[in-house]
């Protein structure tokens, strides 16, 4: 099935973005998501693993088997990387449209 733009919920998108650099365990994901969103998204373990379960079922992330740590690590799958890239290009196009329509300034703020 063809993946459409903006199919990912905000938290799922943020988790994929956090995993784009390297495999991470639960708390590392939470910290990275908080940093990436400038403190706007503050996850707790329940919400995190609800999204992780969904992403795992969709085949967008997978568990890392050998980590040398007792924590469970997750990484992006190839499909997850594609979904993230599609989502980012959608956002990029949307931001450019916002600028063209003079809703956004070039710095990204609202006019």
């Amino acid at each position, binding site marked *: 099935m063809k993946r459409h733009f903006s199919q990912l919920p905000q938290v799922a998108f943020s988790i994929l973005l956090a995993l784009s650099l390297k495999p991470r365990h*639960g708390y590392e994901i939470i910290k990275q998501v908080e940093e990436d969103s400038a403190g706007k998204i503050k996850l*707790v373990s*329940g919400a995190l*693993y609800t999204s992780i379960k969904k992403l795992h079922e969709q085949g967008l992330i997978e568990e890392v088997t050998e980590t040398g740590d007792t*924590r*469970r690590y997750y990484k992006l799958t190839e499909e997850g990387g594609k979904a993230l890239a599609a989502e980012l290009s959608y956002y990029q196009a949307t931001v450019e449209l916002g600028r063209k329509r003079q809703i956004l300034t070039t710095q990204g703020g609202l006019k």
Partner: protein
Amino acid sequence: MKPFITIYKQALKILPVVYRNRYGEPMVRTLEDMMADQITAQAKWNVWLRTMFDLPITTAYQYAQTGGKTMHQAPNYAKQGTIVSTLLLVPFIVIVTLNSIHPLTKSWIGIGYLSVFILPFVALLLGLAVLVRLFIAHDLWSRLKSIKQLQNNWILFAVPILAFAMVSFAFGHDGVHCITDGHPSKIMRCVSNS
């Protein structure tokens, strides 16, 4: 910190077993990491509270998901039976809610018996019929032997149990007139006096 983690571990038991087996341990570990990373006691307390408040939402969501999966995998007659039974219970909820907003009283008498007694009773029979057929056709009994399977199939039992509760409320306590005629604030007193 340890008592907080122990409480959280115990609280995780409300999650569906399949989900808990898979994600329970990482959830606890994540909370441990989060709390260990906080400097002040107040910050640790805030993290713990946020996590605890999130748990009922996660639980409800996971139960809804397991219910959805059961319905997705269930045979057509089970899906249709459960949907129809649920719809039959709606008038009961509507009539009680409307009576709570405004005492509609007398005007509801005619359809009151139908809404609060007959329809839930039909829903109960239909729900039970679905269960009996599932038990016979799919050997549901052997699948439900473990608590895990019972949790996974909760949705099939929810409607008959709810319908039974409604019928018991209306019939067992002779409370039909209390719901349909009585002032909502007096429903419980009326039922207990019936």
